């Protein structure tokens, strides 16, 4: 006899449960154990199980078991999968395309052109020779130990993903800053993206796309990394001095002029801080994304774990740290320049 028989008997639901013969369907582990031991289990009050799905199922086979819940979710997802694919597939196709091309381009350009270009870009952004020197040295080192291709792959993925994060994140942040309702709707979504372990949303993505498609890891990285740039754009625009906005209104600016001439420029330090965070988070996610076929340094880290190649794991880990330092320094230098011009 199961603990919760009285509930169904008391409510007169025995009929609905399908008579007395509890034990139809799949049995829980406990039930199986007690059956094999052959004793009628007399449960003491101390051991009363929580009225969970499994416990109730024991008393009434018509109740679903907890594994029905998970398989139900899975079937539900599979049922809408085809429809979802029709919509999402073409929408995300440009991402695959961008990633493939960026990967090709970064590897096609010869090293003796690529390293100087990266140095020039970092100088243009940060206006510091020291920084450009650091960039050059780091890439030369990574090339020297034959990690150049992996580094370029990682860099290509980060560039594309961070760019798309900014492309979508800044307008979303602006919309949130301008409308309280949008903000109230977005905050739970952002909270969820930030707290869900990335592996959790990798699973449905694997169902949706084939594992070989670049957009699979592209979407995973973007979902993970877009949060800071959205949040900080929202915050930056809301923090713009109220009196300055009033001055813009008092002199007859249009909403457009106000947005592009005042709010965005004044929010730029915050937006850049968001971009910096977004780039750092893409870098973190690139390693996880190599589980779903993202190329780059992450693959080597994974190899280190899978086949216990300690040296490979450590060196590629160091490469990622080096990349993180460079990206962080360059974006922070840009941020410092913006700050210096405003305060």
């Amino acid at each position, binding site marked *: 006899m199961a603990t919760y028989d009285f509930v169904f008997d008391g409510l007169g639901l025995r009929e609905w449960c399908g008579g007395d013969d509890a034990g139809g369907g799949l049995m829980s582990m406990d039930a199986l154990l007690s059956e094999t031991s052959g004793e009628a289990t007399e449960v003491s009050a101390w051991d009363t199980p929580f009225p969970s799905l499994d416990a109730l199922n024991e008393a009434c086979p018509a109740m679903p078991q907890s594994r029905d819940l998970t398989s139900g979710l899975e079937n539900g997802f599979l049922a809408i999968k085809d429809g979802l694919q029709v919509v999402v597939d073409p929408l995300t196709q440009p991402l695959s395309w961008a990633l493939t091309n960026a990967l090709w381009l970064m590897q096609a350009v010869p090293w003796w052109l690529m390293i100087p270009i990266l140095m020039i870009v970092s100088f243009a952004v940060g206006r510091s020779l020291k920084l450009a020197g650091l960039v050059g040295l780091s890439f030369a080192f990574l090339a020297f130990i034959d990690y150049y291709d992996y580094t370029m792959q990682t860099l290509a993925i980060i560039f594309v993903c961070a760019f798309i994060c900014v492309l979508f994140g800044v307008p979303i942040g602006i919309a949130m800053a301008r409308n309280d309702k949008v903000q109230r709707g977005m905050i739970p979504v952002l909270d969820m993206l930030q707290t869900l372990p990335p592996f959790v949303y990798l699973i449905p993505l694997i169902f949706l796309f084939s594992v070989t498609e670049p957009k699979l890891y592209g979407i995973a990285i973007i979902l993970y990394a877009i949060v800071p740039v959205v949040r900080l754009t929202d915050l930056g625009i809301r923090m713009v*001095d109220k*009196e*300055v906005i009033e*001055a813009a209104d*008092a*002199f*007859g600016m249009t909403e457009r002029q106000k947005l592009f001439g005042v709010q965005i*420029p004044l929010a730029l330090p915050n937006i850049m801080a968001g971009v910096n965070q977004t780039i750092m988070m893409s870098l973190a996610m690139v390693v996880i994304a190599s589980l779903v076929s993202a190329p780059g340094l992450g693959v080597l880290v994974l190899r280190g774990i899978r086949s216990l190649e300690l040296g490979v794991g450590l060196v590629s880990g160091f490469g990622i740290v080096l990349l993180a330092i460079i990206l962080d320094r360059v974006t922070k230098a840009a941020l410092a320049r913006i700050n210096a011009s405003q*305060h």
Partner: protein
Amino acid sequence: MTDEIKISIRNLYKIFGDAPEKALAHVHAGMSKADLLEQENHVLGLNDINVDMPAGKTTVIMGLSGSGKSTLIRHLNRLIEPTAGEVLVDGDNILTYNARQLRDLRQHRMSMVFQKFALLPHRTVLENTGLAPSIEGKKTRAYADEATKWLDRVGLQGLGDQYPHQLSGGMQQRVGIARALTSNSDIMLMDEAFSALDPLIRTDMQDLLIDLQAELHKTIVFITHDLDEALKLADHLVILKDGFVVQQGEPQHILLNPADPYIEDFVGDINRARVLRTRSVMEKTEAPVEGLDGEVDHDDTLESVISMAEGDTNRHYRVMRDGRQVGVLHMRDLVRALVPSERGTDRALAS
């Protein structure tokens, strides 16, 4: 008054809260600001304001913190929308304006100077000064001359390429004034424009404003909580308390005839000898009088007359305006006017 009226505020009410219309009915029924806040949870910002602001003159709105000064001035360019009432500019009710007309009003007919300067930190001083023309779509080159002219006029020669954060507070507010002047509007709104500056700079700025006004004759609406500043600048003084107008009129008249204990408190500490003019305490007569001790100008302060009379209270002076006698000043009246006496006697004296 024969003065032309530039801005006219009619029965203006502003109530902050979720259901201002409903709260307005309570206010019409006579509910006080404190009761409205306690019982209805609405803030009575402005209560039945009626003010006429003369063209080419300075109207000063004065009141303690929270009396509704900022709220009132923001109705003039509709940074705040009223709950009820009218605001007429050049006879037009601006509350009927659509978005385009309103932008035109703000770009060409009114400019504003802010307490904390509110300059755009990412633009140079020159670009800040040229804000109004730049909003119209003019390039820097097109407005540079005009903007430089006004920067020079407010005493900021050669600073056009600096950024606001490189200037001191007083200099930043000069940029604020130059920015307002560059818009070439007739009306200048100034919300506590000098309150954030230290006393010496503040006096300089007041003098600058008086200079500019003597030359440009703008219609200025100036807000302050400082009576000395108000008396120095005002042609027309409006005193606000808890969102309603306690008294308005010529500053000298208000000083001599405070309508309310609130205003008596306000004017009690002022150095009256330095503020009051002979015209305010003289006996008005154009008839020739014999045996006078000398002549004074109608706009002389009492302080200067006292030093001229060497403290003698038995003297009498002819008061002159543009070379013509407009009255006779008896030193006894003058001395009596120096003491903020009971309202009754002050009344009698002025009439």
